[in-house]
């Protein structure tokens, strides 16, 4: 049965993190990722009846988000991966667990609280302000490589922390 607008809105909200993750693989700035998601929602609501079921809608949304994000990156003259790689990544996003989203966000909030002020500052500049690592390096007076390494370590630390908490809560 074709979907109605209410179901389309609800399904896209429920899968918001997955759709945004597809865009976030391509573009760094969260505002641009937000824009991509917003455009996908608006486009989906223009003709909700074209989606046969929630799976159809999600596949379309992931594809639409990927194409829009690549367009954004190219318009900014950014290097991007092969489209075939993004396609595989987008298809694998469907396998990310959707039912653990609330638990993951809660776990992340707790894990963020345990970070050092310096790590939090780097994360805020990277994810909230959308700065490139070069710009962050200038601000904090460190080398670009050091910033890359610090961010990567912090992300890995957070990923493990979230995973541990999720597993403990199961």
């Amino acid at each position: 049965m074709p979907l109605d607008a209410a179901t389309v809105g609800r399904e896209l909200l429920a899968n918001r993190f997955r759709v945004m993750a597809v865009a976030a693989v391509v573009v760094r700035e969260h505002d641009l990722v937000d824009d991509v998601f917003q455009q996908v929602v608006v486009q989906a609501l223009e003709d909700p009846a074209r989606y046969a079921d929630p799976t159809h809608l999600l596949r379309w949304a992931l594809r639409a988000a990927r194409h829009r994000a690549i367009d954004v990156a190219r318009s900014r003259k950014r290097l991007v991966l092969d489209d075939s790689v993004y396609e595989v990544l987008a298809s694998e996003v469907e396998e990310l667990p959707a039912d653990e989203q609330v638990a993951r966000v809660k776990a992340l909030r707790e894990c963020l609280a345990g970070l050092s002020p310096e790590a939090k500052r780097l994360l805020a500049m990277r994810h909230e302000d959308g700065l490139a690592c070069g710009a962050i390096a200038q601000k904090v007076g460190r080398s670009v490589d050091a910033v890359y390494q610090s961010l990567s370590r912090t992300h890995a630390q957070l990923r493990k922390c979230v995973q541990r908490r999720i597993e403990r809560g199961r």
Partner: protein
Amino acid sequence: MADEGEPAVTECDPTFERLLDGDLSPAELAALNAALAADPVLRRAFLDRASLGVAIAEQLKLAAHVEPVRPRSTVRRVVPWVGIAAAVFVAVFLFLPRAEAVAEVVAVEGEVWRAGASGEERCPAGTKLRSGETLRTSGPTAGAALLYPDGTRVALGGDTAVTVSSPGFKLLQVTRGDVSADVSPQPPGRPMRVETPDAVVEVVGTQLSVSAASGGKQTDVGVSHGEVRVTDRARQDTITVKAGEAATVSPAARPKPRIKSVVPPTWAVDPATGWQTGTLVRMPGPTGEEITAARAEPVWKKERGTAFHQVMCHNAWVDGLFAIGPTTVLHCDILTEQPGFVQAFVVARNAVPDPSCWAQVHLMDGIAKNLSAGDWHTLHLPLKDFKLTRPWTPFPNPCAYLVFFDTQVPDIGLTVGRVWVTAE
């Protein structure tokens, strides 16, 4: 993974950050393409990193949305949210049937947030909560009070989160923290349910308090009037708890009712097991003998973009720590490694938990600011010299349920040894 000779890419490699910055050389990009095409583990790591980035940004944005901690560009940040909000509005508010208001938030203190379909936002008094919405208090001194249409009142203590709904009966899900409820008589066969991760409490009409430890390891239930049925979720045991009784639901033992003892006028913290926040250390105490003490640990305050350093005792919302009288004195042994500012807090509720006035906070500022650093000091702090942070009429019979010590940034190495209370 990558072929021999190509740069290897591992989970913690900064390659992904460099890709997003457009900082890879064509050769590195080609190597990354090949590695990603060949290695599902690496693809999963990339996806996890991307999901994590989205979630981090959302969390940071949420924290700064209401009370920005630093100047920000409003245009870029507001427009996408307005757009998404518009799209969500179309979906949620125009096409979905609107949920009925279940209860009204009639009073708030400190940081109180409401979370619903459109995200989390600051919750002022007067807000009507709809079915499925969550009310959260942030910080040990925050609080809120809910009023249901039938007159049932629920009070939330600090660091508490509840979700309200009405699937044919009143359902209050307590994720963590402390609530007290004065429940009006409920329709036959449809008792109000208060659920925690450990327990289900069914209430026909009574006055009770419930405390759910963070992480779902223990739930305490106390009853002031009437009686409730308490079910241990794990064991599927149900017991009845009557007025003047309390019960604890935890993995340690089967729940059974116990008589709530009168809250004593004196108290002392157990230095080894009495602290919920603080790192235990062994060190020479005020007399030179080795003692167990609690060193303050950082507690992140996202709304302020900074961390306090804190030592906090276990919460005794249901049973109480000590009764507060005109001669109550809080004594403590404290040491700071550097000169600095320390506050002492005593959080109290009415002897009978009252949902219309759930807690009062006694605060004494600067208890360590003029003390020499590096030495132990024994302080004697009369409760009458503390100030009340809420301009309420003092409770007739206040009963302390939480004591903590807080410092400001930076960490000055606050360490707390003995803490005890006397009524002289």
